[in-house]
């Protein structure tokens, strides 16, 4: 099993959900996060006081999938999330040791 963490532009949320649904992925966790990579922040001015904001709002997808489905899911996320500009985000892939469905104790891929 693999865990995919994709940090993407918030406005791509719906596109990516749709793309995942189209390749048959139903389960995922989404959170609003802040961060930055190479993307520069922006300037905000409050009553003449300038603030440089470099932590930008991003959306983080977390999903766990069977090993053999990895490439097609990554392709789907990349295609949906890409604008070609700096700030599109990053995807990280991890090996998962175990998965458990709390309701009935299913383990491994059965729990996904």
């Amino acid at each position: 099993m693999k865990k995919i963490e994709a940090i993407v532009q918030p406005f791509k949320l719906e596109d990516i959900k749709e793309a995942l649904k189209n390749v048959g992925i139903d389960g995922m966790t989404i959170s609003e996060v802040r961060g930055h990579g190479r993307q520069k922040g922006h300037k905000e001015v409050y009553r003449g006081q300038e603030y440089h904001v470099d932590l930008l709002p991003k959306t983080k997808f977390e999903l766990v999938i069977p090993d053999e489905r990895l490439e097609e899911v990554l392709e789907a996320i990349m295609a949906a999330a890409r604008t070609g500009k700096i700030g599109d985000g990053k995807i990280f892939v991890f090996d998962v040791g175990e998965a458990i469905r709390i309701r009935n104790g299913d383990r491994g891929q059965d729990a996904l």
Partner: protein
Amino acid sequence: MTIETDVKALEAAVKSAQSAGDNAWMLTCAALVLMMTGPGLALFYGGLVRRKNVLGTMMHSFAMMALITVIWAIVGYSLVFGEGSAFIGGLKYLFLEGVGKDPNGDYAGTIPQATFMVYQLMFAIITPALISGAFAERIRFSAMALFTTLWAFVVYFPMAHMVWGKGGFLNAYSGGVVPCFDFAGGTVVHISSGVSALVCALYLGKRKGYPAEAMKPHSLVLSTIGACLLWVGWFGFNAGSALSASGLATSAFVATHFAAATAALAWLLAEWLHSGKPTMLGGISGAVAGLVAITPASGFVKPMPALMIGLIAGFFCFWTVTVVKKMFGYDDSLDAFGVHGAGGTLGAILTGVFATNAVNDTPINGKVVPLGWMDGNPMQVLNQGIGVLITVALAAVGTLVILRICDLLVGLRVSPDEEEDGLDLSQHGEEGYALEV
């Protein structure tokens, strides 16, 4: 005989009808002015601080609604409106003795004195609440409560008596030595609170980390709602200061609204040119600056001068808040001085320029006289200036003495650790936004 009785009955009926109309309006205005403090100012200031201080900041406004009310009932009203010297009222109305449904002809002859009393109370509540913008995010709650209590006695009651009380030193309508025009509290409310705010900011020192750390407003949504409530409440503040549902009240209502509009536009334009974008915060700051500046003038000026006063106030306060504050480096956290001190002073002076008896024909010493410079009385600008100086002196010295006393008795500032945690947790043991149980 019967005609005489009929006429008397008719006169009584007319008087009763006027009293009913005026009283309905003035009770409404009293409620509107209370709404300026809570939730108006509480939201406006609450949104401007960091989220860890939102409740502490709202408490600074809310606590005044309870604290000042009690002081006012016991002795405050008497010290302002009871007969006394030129500088402070007497104890005639101690415990509101004799303040009931009968009018007080010295102030408002058509409404119950209790209505006048509760209307004036709302002014006494908002004034110390305005100061809280300067010591936001770093004062102890106990020190704030003690400070505002003492401030009411040392600064507000004498100021209000001098300007509005019978025989007051600055009261143009009651034989004041220096006759000043202050319709709704430019000196009493805004200069006094604004100058005291500056003294507080200088005495307490900067917030930990200011100005290196980002301390941006945590919710301009709250601030915008608050500012709009202030704008609406201000109709009660200014138009209500006519103390009757009269044409003068209408005139003040119009002037108030017009000045807010041009000041909002002026501030937006200034920052658009200065930093490239018009902001929501700039718009509401400008509106408040215009409302402050028109306050003393509202019952004396025509609509076009009102537009002018707002326009000047918008640019002027933008300049004090962005340029002057940076130049001197004081941490007037929410710009109580930059908006209320600067805007109030500007408004007081411009009242001397634009006041006209075409708007306000209340007789002075029995006859209608020219009021401001435009009316042919240029000396009035000087009188207004003297009024401003007296207010500045009393507010600055009074505040400094009170701060010293509070510092010795309870300590003004929270500890650095408490400041880091925020006032909500350290002073009140609660949080404004609990996302989980």
